[in-house]
């Protein structure tokens, strides 16, 4: 083999080792959690003999986990829903470019993403106190709206930048009503971005710890807060079992998204 060909081969070999190594490294903690959830003993001794489902049976009896899970699901669903409406509308206004400073507006809408979560959390804590907002649920919902909105804005602005608005007019010329044209032309073209935006903002809200920790009280705790508290106090495989169930739900969501949109396209719009 000649020198240049060898260099090229080595480069490809390096790239593949990095990719496979990265995949194994990234999946390792998930595999460990799944394995630990079947541990027969309260300590995570891997490997172990004889899988047990006792920790799965215990999930339902954990103190305060169901309310936390249900609160997290509600907050994530409501904030994502509102963010999808507001973010998509703003993205359309920005993409049409009829707004003054529409480029700047797009940047500003996305900027909370780059913001340290903890800083946003303390800023909101002080702000809500100053304006006298004393309802943990409302505070959480509002906070999660500012967590989810940038995801929607970023993804929808990217998706819309590739959408040709004259297609709607073309459909009108061909006899579609305006709502008909929107449903037949715009909705299918934007559905992948919309789905990606919804998925990512739901997960961002569902997993948020650094903002939520400042806005919860003894009775209003989201799942991540409850989980971290549990880990610090008395970790046992129950948490691994619960995480495994959430992980399975996430895998199902990702498979469905892959079928509907394709992970490849999501990697594009997600970024």
């Amino acid at each position, binding site marked *: 083999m000649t*020198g240049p*060909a060898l*260099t090229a081969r080595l480069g*490809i070999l390096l*790239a*593949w*080792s*990095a*990719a*496979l190594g*990265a995949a194994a*490294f*990234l*999946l*390792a*903690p*998930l595999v*460990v959690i799944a394995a630990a959830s079947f541990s027969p003993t309260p300590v*995570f001794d891997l490997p172990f003999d004889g899988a047990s489902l006792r920790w799965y049976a215990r999930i339902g009896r954990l103190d305060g986990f169901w309310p936390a899970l249900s609160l997290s699901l509600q907050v994530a669903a409501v904030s994502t829903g509102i963010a999808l409406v*507001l973010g998509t*509308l*703003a993205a359309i*206004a920005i993409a049409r470019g*009829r*707004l003054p400073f529409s480029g700047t*507006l797009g940047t*500003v809408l996305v900027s*909370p993403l780059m*913001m*340290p979560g*903890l*800083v946003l959390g*303390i*800023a909101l804590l*002080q702000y809500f106190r100053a304006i006298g907002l004393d309802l943990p649920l409302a505070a959480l919902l509002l906070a999660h709206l*500012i967590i989810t*909105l940038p995801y929607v804005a970023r993804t929808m602005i990217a998706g819309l930048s590739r959408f040709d*608005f004259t297609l709607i007019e073309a459909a009108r010329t061909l006899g579609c009503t*305006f*709502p008909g044209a*929107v449903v037949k032309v715009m*909705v299918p073209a934007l*559905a992948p971005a*919309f*789905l990606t935006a919804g998925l990512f903002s739901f*997960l961002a809200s569902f*997993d948020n710890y650094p903002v939520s*920790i400042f806005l919860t009280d003894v009775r209003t705790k989201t799942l*991540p807060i409850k989980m*971290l508290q549990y*880990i610090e106090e008395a970790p046992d495989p129950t*948490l691994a079992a619960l*995480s495994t169930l*959430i992980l399975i739900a*996430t895998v199902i969501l*990702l498979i469905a998204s*892959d079928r509907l949109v394709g992970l490849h396209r999501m*990697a*594009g719009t997600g*970024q």
Partner: protein
Amino acid sequence: MSDRALPAPATPAMKPAPDRERRLALLIAAPAVLVLVGLFALPLVKLLAASLTDATGLTLTHYAKLLGTSYYLGVIWNSLRLALVTTLIALAIGYPAAFAIARARGWVRSALLASLFLPLAASVIVKAFAWTILLRSDGLVNTVLVGIGIIDEPIRMIFTETALFVGSVNIFLPFMILPIYTVVAQFDGRLTEAAATLGAGPLEAFVKVVVPLTLPGVIAGVALVFSLSVSAYVVPTLLIGERYPTLSTTIAKAYLLARQPEFGAAAGVVLLAIAIAVVALSTRLGRTGGKA
């Protein structure tokens, strides 16, 4: 679900006066802008104001304490070092990995992308918790290392910087790979072939053609990973704890334990300034890099 994407009559096909269209655009952008002002801009202004006050009025004491005591300078350095190490390791692994993923086809590509998305979708707390299991002295990593004879007896890994960096890279690596992958996937493979035809060796073609073209992705990845890891909270809390105080853990302590919100606010402003500086610098580099 997609009904919500309906843009209503935002894009009338009957060519209205530009005035009317601009009013409509303002109208549909207004709710998002209001949310942004009310829940982002105003709270930040309030935070900045809090960081500059104490019982007697305007003051710089919180910043003086933060930037004038060696302990807190160490805290700031800890945050920066965590971000620097994480970013460099993630770049070293992520850059070549992005190329292989972009070259892959079919189920291999899907599987590799899934290995990025799945951890991204899993809880940070759960992943950090998994590393505490893996890195314990009787954990799997030690068992394997002793088993294959690399080390004689278990080494202490949990609550060390090694654990912190391993966990941090693990959690933020996808944010490095994805932007680079996006750039590489769009990239025309014929460019390197053309370079080769013109007499460039693979290494020369890589340095002169591939690296400059992938620079926007690299800059985006570096900015993301740096700004995320500089403000990480769960990872240092679970993997190293008290012995590695960072700006994030200091802020949380000031608010949740010490009841010193003004000092916490000052630490928050410093952390925010670092994040903004990184983003601004990368935007600037991205712009000049794009021109070159």
